[in-house]
């Protein structure tokens, strides 16, 4: 490099950035959050493996006695519209976010979908993420709460194998507990695994089939909603 004559040789400079790599997503998530807060809607990012019972739990919530909560949902799906169809059939206004090859939702996809919804008058807006225990974990969507649906059929060690998604969760829905008698697994073992990856474990064992446990889960959501409203 030319030191002396000022002839304009290029030089190599270090530029310090020190910024989160997902800061562009974070900014859109922040904007989504402002939408939810403005309308007093509690937004849920519902994650979990494929088939863990995310849609079934929402259907059951719509059926639950005393269900006076106004609920709407978007479902991330690689290819189909099935989940949104099921939700609409259950009386929940719902749309699909078709992700194509993307294995997770990001804040931009949610923002696009959001503007198709009338948020006024809603209590709860559920974002059903793409079935995947890895990729959705690190994308903020603007939700107030991260929830992971983990079905008892998946195995007691899943929290230990996919720690990031559980660490970032506010609650775990332990689903399909009507199947426990057939499986030889125990809720205690799930609780133990979850306590090793989640500093403040909060687990709601539920069955969408029988409705068991939904009351505690819904009560918790109502408490969160009231707090968000204040």
């Amino acid at each position, binding site marked *: 490099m030319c030191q002396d004559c000022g002839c304009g040789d*290029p030089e190599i400079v270090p530029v310090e950035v020190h910024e989160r790599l997902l800061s*562009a997503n974070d900014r859109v998530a922040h904007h989504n959050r402002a939408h939810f807060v403005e309308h007093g809607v509690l937004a849920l990012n519902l994650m979990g493996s494929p088939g863990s019972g995310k849609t079934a739990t929402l259907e059951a919530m719509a059926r639950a006695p005393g269900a006076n909560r106004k609920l709407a949902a978007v479902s991330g799906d690689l290819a189909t519209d099935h989940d949104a169809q099921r939700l609409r059939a259950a009386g929940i206004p719902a749309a699909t976010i078709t992700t194509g090859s993307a294995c997770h939702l990001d804040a931009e996809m949610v923002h696009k979908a959001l503007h198709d919804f009338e948020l006024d008058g809603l209590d709860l807006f559920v974002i059903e993420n793409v079935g995947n225990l890895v990729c959705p974990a690190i994308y903020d969507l603007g939700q107030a709460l991260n929830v992971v649906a983990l079905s008892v059929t998946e195995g007691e060690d899943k929290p230990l194998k996919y720690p*990031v998604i559980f660490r970032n969760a506010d609650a775990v829905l332990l689903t399909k507990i009507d199947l426990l008698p057939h499986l030889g697994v125990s809720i205690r073992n799930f609780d133990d695994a979850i306590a090793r990856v989640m500093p*403040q474990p909060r687990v709601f064992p539920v069955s969408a089939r029988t409705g068991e446990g939904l009351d505690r889960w819904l009560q918790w959501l109502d408490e969160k909603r009231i707090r968000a409203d204040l």
Partner: protein
Amino acid sequence: MHEYSIVSSLLERVGAEARAHNAIAVHRLTVRIGAAAGVDPDLLSKAYQMFREGTLCAGAELCVQRVEEQWACPECGRTIARGEILRCGQCAMPARLVSGDEIILEQIEMEVP
């Protein structure tokens, strides 16, 4: 495989920074990735090798600094090993992640006129 979408955010960010500095080329990128961040450094590097073609970063090395996962009690500071119950045995406080969730672009070395 969200490593691909992370790399495209990385290239976008670096491109914007390089344009702002009128850079001719980028020589090296330094990122910090925590062991508990949910990003696989090897997959990240592979995705980077693929996507940098045809960008300002085509000749730029990606340097990944790994950060260890560390948990501690926020009250007494006792470290809690990964895999243990994440609650302090003494204070009963929930453990706090001290480090390990970083996904950070630290530095860009670029060539400017």
